[in-house]
């Protein structure tokens, strides 16, 4: 999916405004095409999964063939596949994503409810990891081989290779439960306390308090993604002549780094950030599990066990739409940043 972003530069000059409009139009059409393709694949993909929802849900409970049939009939599972597909297409275009087989509530409500915890968790972590990671990468490249470089590269790599659930459990055991002199000041899981009213400032703080550890876990795990890429691309720039020129002009070290080297080194990181933001709505399954955060990642993995076709279709549609939109945004942004891309 990342390949779409990289386009070959062309030298052919076309008149500015119309070419950009054409560029935008083509990209949007392409995005819509991808979305429709995803829609079709989603439907077929999940029907191939092993398992029959009526039997998975009904193990030990739906005793007779009539009970199984009644279940299938109520939720439209007894219709021919083609019929189901057409209903699915029709419903999707009218904004109806169906009823979850597991929770028996409209899928759109379910996804809407589960999206916010995920966006808060993964979105905050992505933003934090980008900012901190870029800063770490920058600082360590500028002082390559220094104490900070060795420490931060080793540290972020260690965090990167830790399983997220294990890191999460470690944080729960230390910062939520407390060990020895370390007090347990954070909750062990969940998104809210039960006795706080929604909509109040206390509720917002309560949510932030609950999210602190999961966000910390994800941020630590994501750091290396950004810091390593940033570090290596800045290292590429450091040897360039224009930096020598800048220094020769007598510019301060910070200015050289910030306004000259970093500017150019940021492009690869931007690409990663754009792609990762697209994945925000896919959720973070392991962290959601460890901290019991009712997010989209958890919803999707649990739906796979049933399999809960409509939830899976809905969740994947949203996730794909996220990635496609982020790619589209990145493409359009590149068009603005670099005129050579507009073809």
């Amino acid at each position: 999916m990342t390949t779409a972003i990289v386009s070959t530069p062309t030298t052919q000059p076309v008149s500015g405004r119309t070419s950009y409009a054409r560029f935008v139009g083509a990209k949007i059409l392409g995005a819509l095409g991808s979305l429709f393709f995803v829609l079709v694949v989603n439907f077929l993909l999940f029907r191939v999964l092993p398992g029959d929802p009526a039997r998975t849900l009904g193990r030990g409970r739906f005793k007779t063939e009539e009970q199984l049939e009644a279940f299938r009939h109520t939720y439209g599972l007894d219709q021919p596949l083609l019929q189901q597909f057409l209903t699915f297409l029709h419903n999707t275009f009218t904004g109806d994503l169906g009823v979850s087989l597991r929770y028996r509530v409209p899928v759109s409500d379910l996804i809407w409810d589960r999206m916010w915890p995920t966006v808060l968790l993964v979105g905050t972590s992505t933003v934090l990891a980008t900012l901190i990671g870029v800063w770490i990468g920058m600082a360590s490249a500028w002082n390559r081989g220094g104490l900070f470089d060795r420490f931060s590269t080793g540290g972020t790599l260690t965090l990167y290779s830790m399983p997220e659930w294990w890191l999460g459990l470690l944080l729960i055991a230390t910062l939520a439960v407390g060990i020895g002199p370390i007090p347990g000041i954070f909750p062990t899981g969940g998104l809210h306390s039960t006795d706080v009213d929604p909509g109040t400032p206390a509720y917002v703080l309560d949510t932030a308090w609950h999210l602190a550890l999961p966000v910390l876990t994800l941020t630590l795990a994501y750091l290396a993604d950004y810091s390593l890429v940033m570090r290596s691309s800045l290292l590429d720039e450091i040897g360039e002549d224009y930096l020598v020129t800048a220094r020769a002009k007598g510019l301060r070290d910070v200015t050289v780094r910030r306004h000259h080297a970093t500017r150019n080194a940021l492009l690869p990181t931007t690409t990663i950030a754009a792609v990762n933001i697209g994945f925000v709505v896919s959720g973070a399954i392991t962290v959601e599990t460890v901290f019991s955060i009712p997010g989209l990642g958890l919803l999707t993995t649990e739906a796979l066990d049933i399999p809960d076709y409509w939830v899976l279709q809905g969740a994947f549609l949203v996730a794909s739409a996220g990635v496609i939109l982020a790619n589209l945004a990145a493409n359009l942004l590149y068009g603005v940043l670099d005129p050579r891309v507009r073809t």
Partner: protein
Amino acid sequence: MLAAAALLAGAVLVPLAMTPTATGADKSTFTVALTGDVDSLNPFLGVEANSYEMWALAYDYLVNYSMKDMSPAPGLAKTWDTSADGKTWTFHMRDGVTWSDGQDLTARDVAFTYDRVLNGEIEGVNWSTYLNNVTQVSAPDQTTVVLTLRKPNAVLPLLPIPILPEHIWKNVSEKQMKSYANEPEPGSPVVGSGPFRLTSGTAGGSTFTFEKNPDYWNGTPHVDQVVFRVFQSKDPAVQALIKGEVDFVEDINPLQVKALQGQEGITAHNGISPLFEEIGFNTGAVDTKTGKPMGDGNPALRDPRFRHALGYAVDLDRIVKNAYQGAAEAGTTIVPSAYGGWHWEPPADVKFSFDLDKAGQLLDEAGYRKGSDGKRTMPDGRPLGTLRLFARSDSKASVDTLNFFQEWLADLGIDSKVTPMNTNRLGEVILEGTYDVFQWDWFVEPDPDSILSDFTCDQLGGLSDSWYCDKAYDAMYQQQNGEVDHAKRVEIVKKMQQQLYEDTPYIVTAYTTTGEAVRSDRFACFQPQPDPGGVWLIQYGTKNYTMLRPVEQAGDCDGVKSALKPVSAETSDSASSGGNAAIVIVGGVVVLLLLAGGGFLAVRRRATAGDRE
């Protein structure tokens, strides 16, 4: 960067504001950690065990369960009687029960609920088996319910159907029912009659709050609130118990129980549950439409003598010790010993023992002799081949059990191979008949009818996973199902277990337990079910939710001797005040770090290239 630091600092400081409200409330709240979802609050739709618990708190049942052995006990119905031919059941209900909105709960509500089950399509999916053979439900007066049956149904009076308020549910059409959530709105709890009222919670949600019903007919609960918190994995739930965020965790594994037993203020145990684990065989899959053999099960397993011989090749004690860490009992029949009244215990002379010589001898007698290569062959001399042993990949015990079994089969001269697979796939493979041996488990209801029916020919292609089908067994099944004389029915039920033990479609390996742990420094008076030795909380019926109370009110637990008494009177106040002091320290450190970082940045900003080179 600064924004991020501020956010983290803010998150650290929140507990300062939060802690007083959390501990300062006068309400007594009992918080339970559930590990698993509540899938629907609508009793016609949900299928998860945790959902059944929610309905049980919010609603009542015509018939309840005894604490001793889960046998039928008075519920909304004080008494019941059966006509001589077993075709009419009359239930006499108690007076003066009201719904939480003030309306009277009458026999009409019962009739309405049962009618929905009998006549609705989706309403019947969960519950229609309990009203098997019932043709009509009537309410001749306010407190009498009469069930009219086509033919006798001995499973009655087992009626685990929550009674719903007609005045609310009559407005829910058949079409709306399939996605009717039955969830509370702020300020308006779900209308029910149970010991508690559901005030907040949604399908698949993470917390469910119940307020006590002060007018409950079966005793006012001693706690004001019960809160269920859903955890997605067990370790964090255990951590939350240690910290004191929750008061009870259930369904934890034996290792977690062991770890918690050493913790101060916590009592943990492995409670007896009506569960069994089995090694199951493909006794001959057939196409249910044509009756022709189907799949590719090993022909040796169609022979009951072959399967029975393998019963002597399983070291149950070793499985209990190693696969279940000792938190189980060696199994025998498909009706667990927790149901003492129904369980058939094999006499010593026919009971399986771990005796590979005997197993070998029985195989020899049945014609499965060893060939020149030391491998057993079919009676006609063809090679026996390799048995495929399918384990559930999500259960370590399942894989362990079959790995042991593979070793013991090898000792007998039978090749086999263990393959773990996901349960959905295993379910499909079983239905296709393309397996030899599998490992799975069952939860058995208080009436054995349901588990016994899984071995009838009717369930081929349905809930049967062994493809066992036997005319004599089916005849006994029908007979017990219609036998109204309890003692006679028990006799037949025991004979059926005996036949299954001899024919061995299953080798029942273990009666497993359910691990539970409670903050016994805060709450007491949990009575086990079955009593003694059973589970403390997630039981049949809700007696314990009205029994349990804060330790300071425990007394002698109303004279219930087996109830869990308070373990220590100490409270954990010291920990929380210590926590506050520590928060201040951590907060201070964060502020210092921010200041130091800011200063450092300011200095760096001023430095020029010249300074550094």
